[in-house]
């Protein structure tokens, strides 16, 4: 997929998630409802919204529920919970025991003794 199209998809996914997050915890939205909300601020086709929500569903970022002939959607988790999850996932990737190199952290882990040694090394550098 070309970069321009990818980034438009990314932007639309954000917009859709923002709408889903804006309804209260137990709230579900249909594609039509999401489309109506998005159409207030932008020119967007119903089918595009459907495609985006399908993508989000495949990525397990939204839950899907059948309601008669239509599907209703809900964010898989709140924005805060997803952010916390993401941070935890990143920290797991960095941990020495379970490092497979997908992400590279600025600092690794350090024990209390090592932190003391770190501060000493910094003090030496500051005075030197």
């Amino acid at each position, binding site marked *: 997929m070309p970069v321009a199209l990818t980034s438009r998809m990314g932007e639309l996914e954000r917009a859709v998630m923002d709408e889903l997050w804006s309804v209260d915890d137990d709230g579900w939205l249909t594609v039509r409802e999401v489309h109506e909300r998005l159409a207030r601020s932008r020119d967007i086709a119903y089918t595009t919204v459907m495609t985006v929500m399908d993508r989000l569903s495949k990525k397990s*970022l939204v839950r899907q529920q059948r309601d008669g002939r239509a599907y209703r959607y809900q964010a898989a988790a709140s924005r805060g919970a997803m952010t916390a999850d993401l941070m935890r996932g990143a*920290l797991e990737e960095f941990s020495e025991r379970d490092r497979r*190199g997908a992400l590279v952290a600025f600092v*690794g*882990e*350090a*024990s209390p003794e*090592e932190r003391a*040694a770190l501060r000493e090394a910094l003090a030496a*550098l500051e005075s030197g």
Partner: protein
Amino acid sequence: MTTLFLSALAVLLSGPVPALLGRTPLLRRVPRAAVTLWQSVSLAAVLSALGAGLSLVTDRGTREGWTGYGVALLALLLTAVVLGRMLLSGHRVGTRIRAVRRRHRDLVDLLATREHEAPERASVPAGRTAEAGVRVLAAQAPLAYCLPGLARSRVVVSAGTFDRLAPEEVGAVLAHERAHLRARHDLLLEAFTVLHTAFPRFVSSATALREVRLLVEVLADRAARRTHGRLPVARALVALADSRAPEAALAAGGARLVERIRLLEDDRPHRLLAVAVYAAAAATVVLPTAFVALPWLAGLTWLPGVAAG
């Protein structure tokens, strides 16, 4: 003779040599040259292991009799196992890394704000954000890392990082992460991870991976030092290490942080050392190729002619 030499070389380059290099901290003073040396030692180890097996095949395979065929078959099998493990490990590691990054990038794009939308932006000169998108996560725990990728690389920083670090320290962190992305350090680490996953024991692949990980950090630290000075880099390192979660206390990554700060102090070029290390790197690959592999391969093209005559 070829087989014997290549086998000896493979053993030497996959065991004692990496172990020795791992115990030579002096190499970290010339990180770029040291990375090259690690690459050439690993490449030469793999090539000589493959060459040893194949040369046994060509040595014995040309002889008559069942013994000749038996030895050749065994050697071929050994070569196939070495090659197979490498390919399988490469496939597994690569697939996994890309899956984790894709998932992670999707979430980051969904949840993080772009750097220029963030309130704190004095750290990055305008226009430089396009180089690699900086994303800010709304979380208090300080965290900074990079998500490598061909066209969609990202530097991810938590909002808490901006609270704990001075602007020039944040700038140093971003410069460090961008250096990783620019130099594609992820590919280097991936290669050594593949090697380590393929041959986790009996060879010093763990030493190689550990040392290369440290060396790329030193390289990125140096890039950050060039633009921001050594103190902001060192202060950022200590501040971020200090604020990491307490359950991390089990780990042993801290020793390398101390080493990184010590290495920040050293900004002499060490030209002579660098030249020597580059020369060693070149010799490791070129000499066995020129004196053993090429004569052997040249002999091979000659063989069918002899057999036909």
